[in-house]
């Protein structure tokens, strides 16, 4: 069992937790992920690591409530325990030797993009950050991004905060103006990462994407997380989760990510109903 040391509500659907897992904290690096189970009968879900405190022995996760498991997790409070917490899994994001990077985060993906931007900043890299959200209420980690970025763009779909438009708007503007980067690192919804890759491709700027497909064990055993990269089948859990975005077959990845959409919706509704009953 793993204790929840801290819980912070970042916005109505996104929560940050620090989980006591000293061995995982000791090894965790940006870009790696963990797998957790909330309770004894729960499913295993992967979540990317959003930071760690080695001295406190805690690992930070940030999650959006999208299904039954994240709903159950969100009902846990400081001092409560979760059943299983395993990691760090996957290969860390490559950050060494980069001088000028554009980090593009979308929605809850910003939770993973932020520690990467921080790490790059620590290593002396010039960081440009572009973050995008659906609206003002969903914005997270703005101050953290600002602190480690030399340039910062806030975008919202409806224009309720920052500039109106998606993350590709400022990116395209910079690229068209002749701006170059050693690398673009993008984390967010598949459709957003696909369009960021389409934007950088003509300029031949290496673009790293962080894939978060459906997986069961996270150690290479099930192959459920496989995706096509440069015509080859790769396992996100052991070969990734970072890949060269220009080589990823996003359409296939999007299709695979919807494999259990109907089941998950149903499970989420059932879970919500259970919690509602408890309240009544």
């Amino acid at each position, binding site marked *: 069992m793993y204790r929840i040391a801290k819980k912070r509500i970042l916005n109505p659907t996104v929560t940050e937790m620090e989980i006591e897992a000293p061995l995982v904290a000791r090894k965790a690096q940006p870009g790696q992920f963990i797998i957790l189970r909330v309770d004894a009968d729960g*499913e295993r879900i992967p979540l990317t690591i959003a930071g760690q405190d080695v001295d406190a022995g805690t690992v930070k996760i940030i999650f959006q409530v999208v299904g039954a498991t994240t709903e159950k997790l969100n009902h846990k409070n400081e001092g409560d325990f979760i059943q299983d917490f395993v990691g760090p899994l996957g290969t860390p994001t490559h950050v060494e030797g980069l001088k000028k990077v554009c980090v593009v985060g979308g929605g809850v993906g910003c939770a993973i993009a932020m520690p990467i931007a921080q790490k790059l900043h620590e290593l002396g890299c010039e960081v440009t950050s572009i973050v995008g959200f659906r609206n003002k209420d969903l914005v997270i980690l703005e101050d953290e991004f600002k602190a480690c970025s030399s340039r910062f763009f806030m975008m919202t779909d409806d224009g309720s905060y920052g500039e109106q438009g998606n993350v590709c708007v400022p990116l395209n503007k910079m690229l068209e103006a002749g701006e170059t980067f050693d690398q673009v690192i993008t984390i967010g919804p598949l459709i957003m990462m696909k369009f960021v890759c389409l934007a950088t491709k003509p300029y031949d700027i290496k673009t790293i994407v962080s894939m978060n497909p459906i997986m069961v064990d996270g*150690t290479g055993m099930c192959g459920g997380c496989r995706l096509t990269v440069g015509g080859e089948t790769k396992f996100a859990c052991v070969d990734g989760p970072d890949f060269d975005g220009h080589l990823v077959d996003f359409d296939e990845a999007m299709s695979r990510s919807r*494999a259990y959409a109907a089941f998950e919706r149903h499970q989420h509704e059932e879970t919500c109903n259970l919690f509602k009953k408890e309240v009544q």
Partner: protein
Amino acid sequence: MPPKYKINLDLVKCPMPAQDPNVRNKNFQEVALGYTAEMAVEEAKRCLQCPKKPCVDGCPVNIHIPEFIAEVAEGNFEAAYQIINQSSSLPAVCGRVCPQESQCEGKCNRGIKGEPVAIGRLERFVADYHNEHASADSVKRPTPNGHKVAVVGSGPAGLTCAGDLAKLGYDVTIYEALHLAGGVLVYGIPEFRLPKAIVQKEVDGLKALGVKVETNMVIGRVLTIEELKEQYEAIFIGSGAGLPRFMNIPGENLRGVYSANEFLTRSNLMKAYLPDSTTPIQQVKNVAIVGGGNVAMDAARTAKRLGAENVYIVYRRGMEELPARKEEVEHAEEEGIIFKTLCNPVSIGAADVTDPRDPAYGTVASLTCIRMELGEPDASGRRRPVEVPGSEFTMDMDCVIMSLGTSPNPLIKQTTPDLVTKRRGEIEADEDGLTSIEGVYAGGDAVTGAATVILAMGAGKKAAAAIDKYIQEK
């Protein structure tokens, strides 16, 4: 020594009581129900007590087979258990999953004319009898010898190695990557063939001996072999062969294509077969399992139980060449699994939908195969399957499960530069299981590639003896 009992001259084995095929293919309870005491005694009396004991040579761990059978014939079931227990640590498991027809029973003299003695069924009976009657406090905790050993992986190799070392007084810690101990015994082999309560009993037995089990520990990531070496005098790696292979044919990444590992893990470990499970598994009508091993049979029979109407085994050689245990093939046939032998998939077709928002977009709709015929024997001695040109045909399919074997997990190799491995990632180890690193031993599928429970168990035993010798002589 001639038997004390009057030999039962019946040419066939005492039949195994089993659930009716049309009942069991809709539930997940155990298929074979086990012998009664009377059946076991009668079957035991078929053993001739041959002086040369060919059956013992056929057993990878050399169980004293005629001796334990003689005790069964006399009704001394606990004594029979103690004899098996000298050589095997998991008899309740092996009695159920060993390929006896190519091991002990394959060598049995009764098999020359008629059926061999049902050694596997007797082993299972004896183990179940013991588990039912032995009391928990009969376990004597050995005197600690003060030496610490780490075991990586809690499958058959790791459990056996840990058990043998614990009995000698070692302080053993097992590190398991998943949330539950048992390895392939819990994620791979279905409940209807190996009830999980039996595996749990084995794990609990080890804990009673003082073995510590640390779950959620992916060695290579959270701790490396180097770091374990700082804390333990010796390490045994039994990390198995967990990496599934695919065919690299068009359509293999469509939704509805599973590795057998994923399909079985969802159903077994994550309990997707239970109605209230939180882990989803696809509900399908037509499903093809590609491959002919035990894992393929397990996947096919699981799919049938989950409600699939037509379940096909697609295998490129013939019925005779199926590598699965004979009993599994028979059970699968009885349960209505359709065997498409001498067929090999060439592509998987997608649903004819172009709008990505359509739920059917990117899902499996068909499987195209080519017919095969058997040519000259290949290096393995089996006749090589060759394609019959122009014989492609397509079947409606909404799920395809790839059961083509597995490769060793690469995580330990990747983070242990000094560990020498072979081409496919198998860890190099000598007869005793010693790897290229002093004090580090390995065994089971991690060394051999995908093989059987009993071979992994045998490797765990050998390594335990070698580790004991290494530490005592240090």
